[in-house]
């Protein structure tokens, strides 16, 4: 099968269509959803499936999630657009106290097949309430799966997997790439949750990362190649479940791990990646583990301050050079 160039957002739209064509119980809810989403990720769905299935919601985030829980427990599969990831905070009770616990605390009587799609990350001065990445919080909640694709092709396959999954999935789409074009495989395809991918092999250091930081890592790797440094880039694709085997194998090969993400370093998911590496790589004596993430501040608006808090490709280059002393 071939492929076509399209945006990450359009790629997810294809996955939505396969899922909705296949199963009439898949419904989509969200604020302004019939207008297509902030990055066109839902464009045209309402025309194709009608307003009963693609439902414009009031500005009521906690209702959106609670309704998804109730409707999914009653037999639907609900994809809920949460718009910017910061708005999920207004539904954290429903996400954590209800969605993530429902199956377990009710003794396995029901599953809660919902997908919460949320736009995260910086995209040039969107300010403190529209720029965060919150996977650090979600990954600490048992019962939630967490997905964070770095490109359109994976976005399509992972969304297909997320909708098919019987349990609640937080699907994080980085704002900076949702509108970007790349090659996306034609037809229906699934990227299973929990399968990391080595997107660039290398031998000197393993950069373990996800979401848009993968793209920064690829830029950094290219630049470092010219200095003779061979960087392996591991794209986690899903954080829960986490493909520990692929990480550990890469770490064992290179001996140096840099866990990198856009969200805050302190208390963030990078620490978990490193802890997993420490727990899973048999020979610890030569292993070196490092991390790079945002400094501990809300994301500032000013164009000169934002990059001082949130790392990008240049910071990766600098950090790798520091680690490898090149």
């Amino acid at each position: 099968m071939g492929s076509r160039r399209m945006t990450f957002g359009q790629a997810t739209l294809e996955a939505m269509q396969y899922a909705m064509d296949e199963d009439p119980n898949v419904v989509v809810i969200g604020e302004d959803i019939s207008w297509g989403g902030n990055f066109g990720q839902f464009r045209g769905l309402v025309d194709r499936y009608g307003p009963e299935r693609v439902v414009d919601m009031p500005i009521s985030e906690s209702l959106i999630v609670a309704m998804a829980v109730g409707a999914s427990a009653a037999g639907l599969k609900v994809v809920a657009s949460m718009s910017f990831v910061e708005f999920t905070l207004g539904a954290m009770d429903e996400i954590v106290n209800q969605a993530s616990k429902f199956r377990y605390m009710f003794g396995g009587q029901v599953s809660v097949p919902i997908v919460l799609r949320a736009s995260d990350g910086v995209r040039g001065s969107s300010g403190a309430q529209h720029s965060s990445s919150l996977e650090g919080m979600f990954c600490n909640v048992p019962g939630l799966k967490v997905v964070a694709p770095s490109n359109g092709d994976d976005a399509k396959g992972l969304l297909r997997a997320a909708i098919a999954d019987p349990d609640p999935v937080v699907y994080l789409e980085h704002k900076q790439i949702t509108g970007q074009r790349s090659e996306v495989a034609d037809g229906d395809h699934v990227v299973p949750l929990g399968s990391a991918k080595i997107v660039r092999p290398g031998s000197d250091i393993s950069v373990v990362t996800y979401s848009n930081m993968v793209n920064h890592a690829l830029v950094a790797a290219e630049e470092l190649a010219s200095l003779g440094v061979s960087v392996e880039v591991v794209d986690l694709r899903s954080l829960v479940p986490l493909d520990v085997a692929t990480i550990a194998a890469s770490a064992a090969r290179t001996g140096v791990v840099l866990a990198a993400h856009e969200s805050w370093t302190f208390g963030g998911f990078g620490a978990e990646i490193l802890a997993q590496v420490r727990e899973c790589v048999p020979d610890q004596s030569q292993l070196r583990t490092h991390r790079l993430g945002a400094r501990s501040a809300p994301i500032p608006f000013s164009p000169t301050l934002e990059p001082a808090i949130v790392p990008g490709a240049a910071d990766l280059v600098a950090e790798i050079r520091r680690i490898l002393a090149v």
Partner: protein
Amino acid sequence: MDSSPLDRTRAIDLLRTMETIRAFETRIEALFKQGLLPGFVHSCAGQEAIATGVCSRLDRADCITSTHRGHGHAIAKGIELDAIFAELYGKAAGACGGRGGSMHVADFSIGMLGANGIVGGGFGIAVGAAFAARYQRREQVAVCFFGDGAANKGTFHEALNFAGVHALPVVFVCENNRYAQFTAASRTTAVADISVRAAAYGIEGDSIDGNDLLAVIDATDRAVARARSGGGATLINMATYRHSGHYVGDAEQYRSREEVAASRSEQDPIQRFTAHIVAAGVVTESEIADVRLAVEARIDAAQQFAEAAPFPDPATAMRDVFTEAGS
């Protein structure tokens, strides 16, 4: 669902449900005070007419969401007594395999979508169930039970607004027992009659004496008929009173003994119903005594079942976090 007038069979059915809830709560309270039950429990004794009356007008496929004070809802909706009793002990044979406990009793097979330890947690879930029913063209109703205190949660507002916009088949039943934990409703709630808030959502409001079983049934019939016929949601304020403290062990310093005694003696929904049916000649005193004896025996049996049942195997603790079996 039987909409015939109150004949002997129906009256006894209704009475049996109320008596079962009362006996269950009385027994649980006693066991808890003896230190035999884990966690903590909230008794709904005194409020039986609401759960009983509302659920008596629902089909098995209709859904309810419940609260931390949810034993009565579960029993009225038809949960197995053995299963709820064992759940409160944390036993493997419990309704939720012992995972949930008192605040998370659920039985999805009978549309009991769960008690909830989060006050106001049920509003949106009930709306979701009603939305699903409408979407799947099932003639189903969802009922959300909640307390007067829960009416101050933002979740109330978001859910009722959406139910209003979409005329969803959902009934919001406020069990207004005048207190939220230890605080009188008047100190935290801007309106005394919660149904006043219906107008803010363009839905019907209704307000009744929730200790009058027949009034509960009438109001439920109106609301359920409206919901099933596409007429949308209803918010009903049902005035009631809890006989026991907020939880078992509550010192109850926030209300007077006289207030409690007066409600128990004058407003007890079971006494009022039995007085009515005896006066109306539908049921005799001795038939009522028989019901009570049978209920006690049933509770005894459930308790024995629960006590004898094994605890879950710790090796199963990771099961059901996700749908794939854990280890």
